[in-house]
């Protein structure tokens, strides 16, 4: 097997192990853990984040990063609220929100590819800009009372799965399959790996690096807008700080999945597993009445484990090097 494949398979095996341990420990501590109802809630609270990890994965593999994802979510939510309160029909709103998402991603893409700005710095700027636009749109206001037909999408299960699978989970699964196939089995996906591993060589092989990166940012914008819509319907609230701070969760999950922050390495299977681990931990802590806001400790610890464990031996030896 390919060296790279073997390395990522090891990582994924590790994640599976963590997941299995998590399930065993959690269900022994709390018998509710594996109930359909609980799994539904897990899907509910993590669906949007899960969805956002998919385009983020592609972007990081290509060698960039997008920190504006949560702000695009917020902007989409604000736009949805404002347009709805002005009386536009929902289908039209969906189209507008999608277009704005694509545009926001395009701005990111153009700043990075045309102006050659480092994506870390630029998306910190657009993080502020898009959140700022959300604030301008809504001001201090909150829009609520969306039609139940739509808010149900946020809180109910998909009918033919016995009401245990949320719409957002379903969307995540479908998107994961699409992204997975695209990344691992198409020339498009191969190009993403190439440009992340070796940007010049990719260019010299005729890969249209700029165009693909812009497309990736636009996809991210579109997906994050979708996440914003789902989020708004789930909470039945559009307010300017929807999704504040989520970008770090998304990046954390992608890193946990074994995607290298330097680009060129990673897999969708890993991302799916990492999402499950993340969601599982949040849920386990919830069931054991751990302070929800402090679950970050576990995310942080997992992140550290994800970078240190693979090199544990080497790390101990290098402590002497300081």
């Amino acid at each position, binding site marked *: 097997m390919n060296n790279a494949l073997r390395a990522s398979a090891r990582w994924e095996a590790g994640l599976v192990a963590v997941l299995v341990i998590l399930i065993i420990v959690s269900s022994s501590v709390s018998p509710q853990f594996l109930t359909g109802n609980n799994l539904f809630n897990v899907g509910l609270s993590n669906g949007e984040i899960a969805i956002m990890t998919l385009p983020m994965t592609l972007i990081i593999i290509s060698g960039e990063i997008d920190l504006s994802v949560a702000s695009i979510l917020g902007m989409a939510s604000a736009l949805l609220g404002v347009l709805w309160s002005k009386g536009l029909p929902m289908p039209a709103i969906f189209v507008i929100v999608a277009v704005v998402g694509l545009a926001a991603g395009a701005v990111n893409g153009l700043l990075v590819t045309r102006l050659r700005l480092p994506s870390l710095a630029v998306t910190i700027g657009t993080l502020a800009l898009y959140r700022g636009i959300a604030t301008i749109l809504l001001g201090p206001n909150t829009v609520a009372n969306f039609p139940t037909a739509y808010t149900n999408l946020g809180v109910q299960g998909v009918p033919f799965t016995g009401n245990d699978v949320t719409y957002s989970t379903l969307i995540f699964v479908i998107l994961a399959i699409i992204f997975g196939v695209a990344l691992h089995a198409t020339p498009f996906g191969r190009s993403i790996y190439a440009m992340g*591993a070796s940007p010049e060589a990719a260019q*010299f092989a*005729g890969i249209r690096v700029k165009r693909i990166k812009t497309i990736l940012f636009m996809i991210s914008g579109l997906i994050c807008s979708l996440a914003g819509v789902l989020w708004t319907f789930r909470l039945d609230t559009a307010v300017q700080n929807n999704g504040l701070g989520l970008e770090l969760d998304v990046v954390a999950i992608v890193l946990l999945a074994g995607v290298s922050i330097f680009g060129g390495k990673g897999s969708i299977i890993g991302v799916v597993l990492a999402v499950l681990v993340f969601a599982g931990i949040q849920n386990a802590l919830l069931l054991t009445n751990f302070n929800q806001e402090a679950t970050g400790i576990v995310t942080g610890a997992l992140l550290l484990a994800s970078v240190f464990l693979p090199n544990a031996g080497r790390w101990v030896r290098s402590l002497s090097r300081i």
Partner: protein
Amino acid sequence: MDNAAASQPGPRQEAGDGRLMLALRHAAKSFGAVRALVDGAVELRAGEVHALLGENGAGKSTLVKILAGVYQPDSGTLEVAGREVALHGPAAARAAGIAVIYQEPTLFPDLTVAENMFIGRQPLRSGRRIDRRAMHDEAAAVFKRLGVPLDPARIARGLSIADQQVVEIGKALSLDARVIVMDEPTAALSAAETGRLFDVIRTLRGQGTAVLFISHRLEEVFEICEQVTVMRDGSHVLTSPLAGLTAADLVRAMVGRELAERPPEAGAATPGEPVLIVERLTREGVFTDISLTVRAGEIVALAGLVGSGRSEVARSVFGIDRYDAGSVTVRGRDLRRASPTTAMSAGIGFVPEDRRQQGLVMDMSVQQNVALASLGRLRSGGLIRASAERAMATDWAARLKIKYGRLTDPVAMLSGGNQQKVVLAKWLGRKPAVLIVDEPTRGIDVATKAEVHHLLADLAKDGVGVLMISSELPEVLSVSDRILVMREGRLVAEFSHADASEEAVMSAAMGQQVAT
């Protein structure tokens, strides 16, 4: 030292007392199952320029890294100035007086030249504060000794590779290095810059420094070195003064067999239709008014000094860089608004100068690299067919005799020559009508070099038009049907295979008379 000596070929200047500065004996080094060095040995004397030759994989770079203190040998001894030393790291090597100048100098682009030289050991004044004036003056003094006008206050960003090397040499001198190892120093230099480097080396020799000179270019070895050590398969096989040896002797020692030195007779085939027509191509400040034609079945060499703009022309033809005026036509099709995609679909292939950064994705496997430019062809229903990809890689690996472990190994594991073959396979797999190769055999061992030359000749026989950019005159003369010479961004001369000679090409490239 006087400059008159600079124009004599291969003098034996016995400056310095010739005492033994460094002796490495019976060094061995293995990495897991790979025995990189089996019996490495070299002796350097003061005031001597000593060549180290060997094919890729012969153990040269491992030996150099042992001298640099980066590796510790598994067995063997190292003596410096008569005392046995064990070098535990680069700092120990430096303290012992050994300096290594690598092929790609590693400077700090954001720091000044003076800071680059003195980083970590800047001269201090009261209170352990850096004395910038003293640092600047010391750096200036070193450059004066070397006879090179470099401004120590200038930041390193933007320096040419030749200048970067001078900074590295200056750093070595300021460290009182008694042994300077130069690993392929001329690989990226123009003839003028090489000449200047050789002057510097002669100055060093005159001061009693021992220089270990590693190169694949035999003509340079004969020009500047007095002694030679040849390595093969991890062991040293020959140590001798160069006087009395011929290039053939050296090659035989390196390869262990006779090599057919010349590829099949170039210039014999009758070329067909023009496949690449470049007309009045101009890029402001880089190259001007370039017009050339490459016909099917012919190999056209583009010669000239480094910096004359040849690679830039190639990049513009291929669409990586834009151009400001002129046109590029491939098989009758005008390429406007060039991009690599349009160039490739028109039938151009481009083997770039920098194998590791531009030619290959080092993290990807051999198979993936071979397929990288052909992904569109290998897919069905939008997905890449793994079996087709594997078949393509296997096929080309056999055709080009690429040596690899498994097709799924990262291409970084291959030797330089085999890596270059992978790059070629990538492009040949597209059956290009025009193949542009930029420095096709740079950093490649002698045997693979010959294979690549034969390959290019075979391609031409099959009707491909080859545009070869090269700075190695023997290669230019032996492989090509026609030679174009560029100087400072313009085409200045054209020679047919019959008319060309090293002197003629070199004088056109330099724009001045040459003394013989």
